[in-house]
């Protein structure tokens, strides 16, 4: 895939968690506008390898916008300039020939940098493990009609379930708050009958874990939802607040 775009890339390079990082500048020529942002990085890495330099480490997996692995802070915005796309679904046609593009990792105390653009997002896994699950019996699936779910509730739960856990909300938030992520997970399960048994415990435990991980508190700026590649709504944060405060005043846990 040959093209005619010439770009200047300024990329955050950091050897490991402990050493300090800095911005390095790279020149790229012949980039096709049809390449994805990650393919452009592949070209850059080939170039670096040919020059005998260390390639840039970055997270990626499915490259079709669903796994939540890619995580680049591009020109001051998570997943770049376009709305509702992940970095892997961002294409070079969204940029112009001669552009300078600055790429940084997500920055949050709870997301320590592993190397270059790769951050450790296992804090999300620990929040999920704290309560983001339901208990079901194994064995044959039960009859689909035995648990009626209203269409509205199913749609709303699905809009929360669309969260891919990429962490763009944390990256975009001026407080590095994980509220949108946690709210999506709590919301999704609290709206469905399957999520009812652990409902109060879930809200309490997931918020407690979120706080323990060192994420900031929400100030309702709305940056998270504006930058979310899956357009998770702020209504889920309001629901999380209701779930949490309701759980706190009513649960058996004193």
């Amino acid at each position, binding site marked *: 895939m040959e093209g005619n775009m010439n770009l200047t890339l300024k990329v955050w390079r950091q050897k490991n968690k402990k050493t300090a990082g800095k911005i390095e500048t790279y020149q790229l020529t012949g980039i096709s506008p049809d390449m994805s942002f990650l393919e452009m990085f592949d070209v850059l890495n080939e170039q670096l390898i040919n020059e005998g330099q260390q390639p840039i480490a970055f997270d990626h997996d499915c490259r079709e916008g669903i796994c939540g692995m890619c995580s680049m802070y591009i020109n001051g*915005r998570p997943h770049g300039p376009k709305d509702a796309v992940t970095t892997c679904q961002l294409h070079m046609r969204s940029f112009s020939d001669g552009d300078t593009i600055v790429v940084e990792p997500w920055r949050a105390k709870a997301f320590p940098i592993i190397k270059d653009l790769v951050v450790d997002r296992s804090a999300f896994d620990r929040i999920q493990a704290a309560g983001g699950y339901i208990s079901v019996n194994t064995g044959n699936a039960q009859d689909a009609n035995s648990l009626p779910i209203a269409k509205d509730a199913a749609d709303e739960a699905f809009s929360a379930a669309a969260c891919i856990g990429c962490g763009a909300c944390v990256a975009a938030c001026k407080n590095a708050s994980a509220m949108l992520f946690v709210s999506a997970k709590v919301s999704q399960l609290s709206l469905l009958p399957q999520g009812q048994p652990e409902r109060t415990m879930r809200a309490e435990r997931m918020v407690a874990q979120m706080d323990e991980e060192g994420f900031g508190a929400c100030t309702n700026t709305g940056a998270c939802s504006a930058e979310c590649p899956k357009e998770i709504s702020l209504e889920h944060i309001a629901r999380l607040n209701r779930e949490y405060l309701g759980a706190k005043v009513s649960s058996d846990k004193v």
Partner: protein
Amino acid sequence: MSWVTQTLSSSIGKKLVMALTGLFLCSFLLVHMSGNLQLFKQDNGLAFNVYAVFMTTNPLVKTISYGLYAFILLHAIEGLYLAYQNRQARGDQRYVINGGSANSSWFSRNMAVLGTILLVFIVVHMSNFWFEYKFGYVPYTQYEQNLVTGETVATPYEGQIKSKLEEYIREESNTRVVIAKDLYRSVMEGFKNPLLVFFYVLSMFAVSFHLVHGFRSAFQTLGLNHPKYNPIFNFLGIGIFGIVIPIGFALMPLYFFIKSM
């Protein structure tokens, strides 16, 4: 740790404290505004000064006002602490390039800065009037209001009165006589100073920006985000607390400044 303190010290609990104290302060602004509109009454400050006595002597108002001072402090301290904590959450290395304006409003990202301006304003404002009224020297004025025509004559009162307000009817001339501390005069004198007027008007911009975000944000924190009610929160947050209230307050120093010219 009991469940109450545990809840209130969680991130959502801290937001709840900010929201509830913030809404209480908003309700205070409504009272403060409606009371202070009496400054515009053309009666040499009679109504305003009587109101000032009521506000500083009525036991219920006094109780609420102590609560108000406590909530202002709580809101300020908790807010600054949260701002510090939230800044820490970003980590040691901040973004080299950050495009916050692409995803959020300027004032929503700068609530702590706006709030700090307001805290400074409250300190200046209270030392200008509240402190002077309670602990400083505010001269007395005697009002003689003709009960038939409503005409009021104000004269400085040199003597001492036992209570904060003396009020009686002079039957023979059909006049109501009121002697009270003339806070109205202090206001009038204070706002002759253009620097003070400028600072007050500037602070009202901070009030506007702080409340446009803060009022609506409080309801989101309380979990009240609903298409049926959001238009009401938007109307109150932007229209009333973001525009009407700050303009109303800004008009007071401007009115006295223009009057003094």
